[in-house]
């Protein structure tokens, strides 16, 4: 008994010592990264170009005020509509089991990992021309893009409601609605708030969707930043807008971030098979059907349109992708594909280890403050204009030895910074849910700290690691804001190529754009089903 205790004791001490060393290494890497590729570029713009008097001028400009107003109301309306559209499918998937559920969840998640340009393109394909550039398309695209966020965040929480709690409420005389509002709602409220915050921020800083579907009239602050900085070369007004956006988004995220960061319980109650409940079956079926119709139709129409030229069926849009017809327009599919894959792979290789470092510190740290600090610092890129980050990078890394302006690595580093919050989010909760005792047992059984980390932590979070990698790759493949800033001739990616094709008139060229987008959607669906 004494020997055992001693061994345990020694194990604990060495664990602590090596933990401290590991924590330092783990902490330095992401901190250095965020400093170099987030705080430094952003700080540089603020120092060089921010001027409070310009901010006041900008706020006094009625044009800017109307952009701000549009940004606010479209984000609010998009968020509300997303909640309404996502509610039935979230209920169906979190409360019931049915055949093909995993496929449905994957399908609804596809738009979220797709480049916004493709979502916008699909919306353009499905809407009649009269609605082609306007609010309807923007809202439609935002809803399709964000349904998955509600499904994932709210669904995860809702699954943890014990069926007995609901049943007890019903037997006490509460209607289904009373039960939802009095029992279920208080439980999922913070998750809904969290989802609302994230969706609002995505819609508020929307860029690719507005660029393609907004026409000349509709512009968000993010688009305005781009127009001012890139097309008009007016950096000071652009910077004032960056600050304005940062303040609004920071406020929203601050208000909606869950107050307690308690992770979800590991247990979820296995939902009942819907086929046993004939009365609810219709509701579940119609929820699933409506959602799949709503989310899937644009992509289906886009796919069909990729075979249509001048109202006839034709394979030429697909052929043109590969036979060089489009190269005079600066379109080179294989190069764009190669670039996309290269950038995405490097983004994954950098982002996932950085996120793992931060998540490990967060999981091993015992204080709430440390966890909160990591959550806030690492979420910051989510709140920041990607366009601003691109702008900041260009004016920061302009002197030797860090003159990287024209190098593709800068583009990739922007992708990594933007992907970090999402990757971190998918790793933190699983790592935090590993009980310390499990690691201690491994140590007592003779595993070195490194072995413990490998055989316990990494083994348990293998799936979340895959999710983090997938999300990072998706961010890199789809990023449009910083990319349109940092991209150089020869660095075209699939999204910039699709945007170029869709921006060109001519039936065949448009259809080629749809073909390329469809090809990409098929690749993503394939990857998601395989994973």
């Amino acid at each position, binding site marked *: 008994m004494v020997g055992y205790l001693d061994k345990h004791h020694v194990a604990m001490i060495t664990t602590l010592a090596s933990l401290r060393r590991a924590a330092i290494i783990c902490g330095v890497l992401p901190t250095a990264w965020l400093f170099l590729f987030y705080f430094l570029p952003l700080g540089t713009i603020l120092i060089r170009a921010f001027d409070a008097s310009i901010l006041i001028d900008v706020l006094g400009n009625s044009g800017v005020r109307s952009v701000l107003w549009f940004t606010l109301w479209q984000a609010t309306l998009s968020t509300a509509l997303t909640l309404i559209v996502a509610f039935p499918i979230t209920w169906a998937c979190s409360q019931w089991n049915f055949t093909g559920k995993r496929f449905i969840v994957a399908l609804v998640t596809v738009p979220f990992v797709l480049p916004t340009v493709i979502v916008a393109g699909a919306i353009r394909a499905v809407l009649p021309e009269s609605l082609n550039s306007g609010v309807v398309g923007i809202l439609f695209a935002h809803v399709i893009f964000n349904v998955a966020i509600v499904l994932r965040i709210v669904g995860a929480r809702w699954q943890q409601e014990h069926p007995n709690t609901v049943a007890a409420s019903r037997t006490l005389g509460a209607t289904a609605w009373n039960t939802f509002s009095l029992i279920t709602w208080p439980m999922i409220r913070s998750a809904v708030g969290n989802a609302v915050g994230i969706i609002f921020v995505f819609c508020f800083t929307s860029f690719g969707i507005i660029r393609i579907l907004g026409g000349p009239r509709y512009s968000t602050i993010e688009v305005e930043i781009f127009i001012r900085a890139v097309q008009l070369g007016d950096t000071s007004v652009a910077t004032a807008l960056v600050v304005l956006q940062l303040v609004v988004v920071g406020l929203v995220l601050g208000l909606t971030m869950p107050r307690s960061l308690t992770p979800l319980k590991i247990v979820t109650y296995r939902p009942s*098979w819907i086929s046993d409940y004939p009365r609810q079956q219709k509701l579940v079926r119609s929820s699933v059907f409506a959602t799949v119709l709503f989310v899937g139709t644009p992509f289906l129409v886009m796919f069909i349109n990729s075979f249509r030229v001048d109202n006839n069926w034709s394979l030429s849009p697909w052929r043109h992708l590969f036979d060089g017809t489009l190269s005079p327009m600066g379109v080179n599919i294989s190069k764009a594909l190669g670039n996309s894959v290269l950038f995405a792979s490097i983004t994954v290789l950098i982002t996932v280890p950085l996120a793992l470092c931060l998540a490990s510190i967060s999981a091993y740290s015992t204080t709430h403050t440390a966890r909160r600090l990591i959550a806030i610092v690492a979420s910051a890129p989510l709140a920041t204009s990607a366009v601003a980050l691109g702008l900041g990078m260009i004016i920061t890394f302009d002197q030797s030895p860090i003159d990287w302006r024209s190098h593709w690595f800068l583009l990739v580093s922007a992708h990594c910074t933007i992907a970090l919050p999402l990757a971190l989010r998918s790793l933190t909760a699983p790592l935090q849910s590993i009980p310390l005792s499990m690691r201690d047992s491994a140590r007592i059984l003779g595993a070195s700290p490194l072995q413990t980390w490998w055989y316990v932590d990494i083994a348990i979070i293998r799936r979340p690691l895959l999710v983090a990698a997938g999300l990072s790759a998706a961010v890199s493949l789809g990023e449009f804001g910083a990319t349109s800033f940092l991209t150089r001739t020869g660095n075209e990616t699939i999204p910039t190529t699709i945007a170029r094709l869709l921006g060109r008139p001519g039936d065949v060229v448009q259809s080629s754009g749809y073909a390329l987008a469809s090809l990409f959607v098929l690749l993503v669906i394939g990857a998601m089903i395989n994973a």
Partner: protein
Amino acid sequence: MLEVCNMNVVLGGVSIVQDFSIQVLTGSTTALVGPSGSGKTTILQAICGVIPLASGSVLYDGIDITEQPIHQRKIGMVFQNSDLFSHFSVARNIAFGLRFVSPRLSPEMIAERVQELLRLIGMEKFGDRHINDLSGGEQRRIALARAIAPRPHLLLLDEPFSALDSTLRWRLIDDVRDILIATRTTVLLVTHDPHEAEALATRTVAIAPPSNPLK
């Protein structure tokens, strides 16, 4: 009087309850005794409407309630676990059903009734306490008081004492018997313990182990 006729329940393609029939007389306490896996919990859930019947019917006082929505059946149930609303105080848990049964009750009348029930279960001072701060035995008492509060026609008890240690369990069984008699509640009780059934019930019905093994 509750009558269950030829009840069949199928869940996930597996037949859980086969041709089950029972009658519970008004004012009586009937115990359903059987080994685990014999579908006792499922029977109770099917009676109160939480789980649908594959075939058969549930009648109350001669009226077929098989298709009636759960909240209109006036059948209360105390579950094995996890049925308390942890975001409410003890008092709000007990008051929960009252407002649906008699919407015109004033807050004062509700508070009075809650206090009366708290007295009945011997927990007068617990009204403002948080559910998560209570012990297992205390939680079962609250669940019982809550289920009795709206004066259901029938109360279903699903292994109410299974998670408790034996001293506590026997004390609670005595208390519950007194409460049930005092409130003249009709009860259908499910348990795997014949002694428990004997101590509480006026009638005991044994249920056969499942004819086809489930796993």
